[in-house]
């Protein structure tokens, strides 16, 4: 061990605290780097919705009467929505619970890093993986299952805000649910079960016209149902509207519900977020 003096600072220089935005960018880069170094996590995160799309779209592939689409095509936007929620809600819910349990959060709290920078970093990670996941599913959907990319700019604009609002709402809910599990070990069960249930009642695995109304009404309380519906509105022809509970895409209501969930999710995070686990009080 060396004993050379390492004090390089000049005592007089005041030194300003680095800003939250810049640190958020650095944290984002670090989060993405860490994510891609965990190979298992990368494979499962990206492969899960693709495998499910392949399974469901291969089992159910007939034309749905009076809609102009096949069952396979219905699964493309459904799996995209599910993929968005898995890269945001599921991965944040589990990874933050693990970071809390392993005291990574407590250590960060002991530094002058502003908490905002931590959350910004998570948002960059989720945006990055969410865009990648969606691109992969879109590629499979267009090449294998004959889904057409929208040709007018209006639909792409709709896709943009549906993606951003849906991803944000799910990410915030993921941060909120990360405070529920008591340890890293229980994190995946605590996060995955509600995610699975919400996927069923939101029409991810089973088409909305086959789900009992009372279940859909429960699904309508959560962002995933609206995310699914919005993506169907973007990537399916208007003739498929007849399958919807309301008989239309309801873009206005989608925007309203997703925006409301962003606000509610943020409030929930601010109220419940803990830097330490419960054992530490």
């Amino acid at each position, binding site marked *: 061990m*060396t004993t050379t*003096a390492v*004090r390089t600072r000049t005592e007089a220089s005041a030194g300003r605290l680095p800003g939250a935005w810049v640190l958020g960018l650095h944290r984002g880069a670090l989060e993405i780097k860490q994510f891609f170094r965990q190979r298992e996590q990368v494979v499962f995160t990206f492969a899960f919705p693709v495998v499910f799309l392949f399974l469901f779209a291969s089992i159910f592939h007939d034309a749905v009467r009076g809609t102009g689409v096949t069952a396979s095509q219905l699964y493309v936007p459904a799996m995209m929505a599910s993929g968005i929620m898995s890269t945001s809600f599921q991965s944040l819910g589990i990874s933050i619970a693990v970071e809390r349990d392993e*005291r990574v959060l407590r*250590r960060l709290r*002991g530094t002058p890093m502003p908490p905002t920078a931590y959350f910004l970093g998570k948002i960059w990670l989720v945006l990055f993986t969410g865009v990648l996941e969606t691109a992969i599913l879109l590629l499979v959907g267009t090449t294998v299952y004959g889904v057409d990319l929208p040709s007018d700019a209006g639909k792409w604009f709709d896709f943009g805000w549906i993606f951003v609002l849906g991803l944000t709402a799910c990410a915030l809910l993921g941060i909120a649910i990360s405070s529920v599990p008591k340890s890293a070990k229980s994190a995946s069960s605590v996060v995955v079960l509600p995610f699975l249930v919400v996927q069923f009642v939101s029409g991810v695995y089973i088409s909305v016209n086959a789900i009992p109304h009372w279940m859909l009404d429960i699904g309508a309380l959560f962002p995933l149902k609206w995310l699914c519906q919005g993506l169907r509105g973007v990537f399916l022809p208007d003739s498929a509207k007849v399958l919807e509970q309301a008989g239309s895409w309801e873009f206005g209501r989608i925007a309203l519900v997703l925006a409301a969930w962003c606000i509610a999710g943020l409030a929930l995070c601010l109220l419940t977020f803990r830097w330490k686990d419960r054992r530490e009080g």
Partner: protein
Amino acid sequence: MTTYANGLAVDVRGLRKQYGDVTAVDGIDLEIRRGEVFGLLGPNGAGKSTTVEILQGNRDRDGGEVSVLGADPARAARAWRSKIGIVWQDESAPAELTVRETVRHFARYYPRPRDPEKVIGLVGLEAKADSRIKGLSGGQRRRLDVALGVIGDPELLLLDEPTTGFDPAARRQFWELIRTLADEGTTILLTTHYLEEAEELADRLAVVAKGRVVAEGTASALRNRFGSEAIVEWTEADGRNRRERTGTPTRTVTELTRRFDGEIPGLRISRPTLEDVYLRLTGQEDAR
């Protein structure tokens, strides 16, 4: 460097902390001067860690006045945190990153960080700089913890049982590192239950037991506190070993000589070591 009215880096008065029915800290007073290495010594559960966590600003207190670098840790801002370095008791860092990536990244949080490369050298991890953290040994991880604790060039470094689990060689290396930091003027508060460590490193120390400071001062002052006493041990005629603490060992021996009429079986006279003093202060005498 900032100066404070009373010249104290840490000023604690009447600190109290309760966990349910258990009183962890029961009125602790501490004064740590700037540039000093201060040891907080005590058995497990004495309230050391709770005290340090309150000083870090990571735990609420139930009562008392606390001033750390002139501010109350419970209401401390980012600027205050940038002057404090923490080395936690049980630590984890992002396993998938390398040592260099982690140290460089943490340096970004501070307004005037030390040079990351020099800090990696300071803790002796040059050879492991590009290794993932998950591949480090326990001792190497601990050194990384120290690197992250000092990267912001703190005025005050808080170390909570930093050498628990170290082998003797690693412990000596670590002491060397702490001395280097102290020589550079860093104020250091260190908790430990290793007496030898406190004696090696600390300018002054406080012994804590059951949430209270039971003794305070330099190691030699503590030793001298019971220095006039001696322990006389012998074996009775029925084979029982006897042990007596006395301020007048010569008189005890004279009496025993008379009683045994000559040689005293198994006679042994010893002066208390710092360890004896410590065990006596912390009420663990029976442990011997």
